[in-house]
């Protein structure tokens, strides 16, 4: 649903050493209830943006002419590039971002709410006047982290 506040959020546990203070705002516990404290203790689980926890993948044009393509949260590779090693992917313009090192994904069940409608990720506009990379005809597959070929 368009107004679902938990859309795009995943449960994440704080594993850092030090007490954290969230900037004022609305934050949710793992069960979907609104947090009443902005203090985050070690071990606390709260709902965080997925790409902050598991990272994200962007496919850039290495020559900087075409707009980059946001492939989504996590480590993703387009079907036609599956099986390539890290170096080859980097030369093609793949940029895999890691998530926060002080939070870890909790694989507990999601709160019992209606599932949000999955929208195709929108390309990240870097140079609007440039022609775009061909639009996604299909969802990119998420593959396991590609090991570098020896």
């Amino acid at each position: 649903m368009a107004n679902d506040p938990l859309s795009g959020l995943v449960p994440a546990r704080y594993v850092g050493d030090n007490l954290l203070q969230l900037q004022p705002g609305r934050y949710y516990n793992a069960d979907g209830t609104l947090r009443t404290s902005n203090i985050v203790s070690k071990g606390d689980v709260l709902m965080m943006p997925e790409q902050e926890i598991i990272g994200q993948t962007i496919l850039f044009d290495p020559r900087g002419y075409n707009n980059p393509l946001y492939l989504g949260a996590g480590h993703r590779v387009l079907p036609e590039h599956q099986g390539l090693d890290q170096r080859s992917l980097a030369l093609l313009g793949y940029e895999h971002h890691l998530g926060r090192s002080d939070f870890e994904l909790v694989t507990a069940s999601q709160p019992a709410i209606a599932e949000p409608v999955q929208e195709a990720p929108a390309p990240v506009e870097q140079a609007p006047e440039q022609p775009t990379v061909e639009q996604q005809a299909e969802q990119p597959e998420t593959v396991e982290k590609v090991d570098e070929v020896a």
Partner: protein
Amino acid sequence: MVYVPVRSDNAYLGFGKQVSQGTAVAPTVFPRWLDGTSFEMDLKAEDLWEGDGTRRLAQVIKNHQKVKFKHVCTPRMNEMAMFEQAAMGSGSDTVTPATVNTTLSSSSSIGATSISVAANTGLTGSGTIALILSAGTVREEIALFTIPATGAGPYTVNVNAGYNGGQLKLAHNSADTVQAFTLHTLTDQSDGSYYTIEIGLGSLFSGPGMTIRVRDCKCAVLKVTGKPGMEIQYESEWEGIACATQGSPATVTLEAHPVFLYQMGTWTVDGSSVSNDAVSVEAFTIERKNNLDVVQTEKLIADASIFGNLNCDVSFDTVFTAGTRFFNTYFGGPTGTADAQPIFAGSFVVAFANPDNFEQVTYTVQTAHYTKVGGIEPKKDGKHFKQVIAATGVSNSGANTYVMQTAIQNSTTTAF
């Protein structure tokens, strides 16, 4: 037409240390920024004048593009270590583990005058020790205790009377951690670590602004300053390689510890903590420049950057009471009388210790060559003479293992 302006404090900068070059990370450290913080897209372009029979400029071409940040803040004890690691370089942090690292054997209530711990390692000496209880939780408390611990296990440690009248302020749970500080000793290294910096400008609180993530950033300059009555301030300059806009701002998380204040400082100048200069420092600055070399090959953006030569400059103002330092710097000795060749070598050490006896930072320029003593100017304003002193940190012809060292006591147990 209706539009909604955005307040200019709707902004954040977040830092995350990268595991490797080229792989950005989501930021984890968000030091509270101060005025003077800025962000610049450094675009280099050239005019292309072609002989087409006209006097018109044909076009402008981009040669190079990178990002520059300037961040001003009053860092907390863990944020401070992050900045120091970024400025000092990769592998710069040598960790001395906490001498005490145990757990509570039973819960303690507000007003408790002692705690019960599982192990007495580090608690067998005499005197006092600052311990952090329940670190990283809402029950976190730094308190002063009297040692040695007593008992045969579990062990009892009494709260020192100098802390809150000998009583804990918060309740703590059984199995909560009990730790002394971890010491991080950072010295200048060969090259720096890459960081990802993310900046939000007007994007917080569903604002319409922008969020930009910049990967492969290195710290070009780090300046530490202090003035009477003020907080210790860090001013860092960074250069980053490649940008990506983000669809939403990061979850900003702030460190919940106090800042360091100027009056917490103890100065040791040229080996003395009691000389007139050491007890009359009116302001100080320690500036390190890494002189980044940015490598650009086939693309618009750079491929990499490396640390260049290190400059470490110290300047401090003191109250002028005698000509000794002036004679040392220009006339070869404390009683010199004419221009002399030898450089005046000394040292500069300043330590800021929080009254909780836990958090502390010490800056050490082991060998400082003094290049200027100025500011001793006659004025008709009725105020005192002052000396404006400048020195350069050196390796003492290689004898020293570092030009500058920063030692930080904080609650992070792993290397930065």
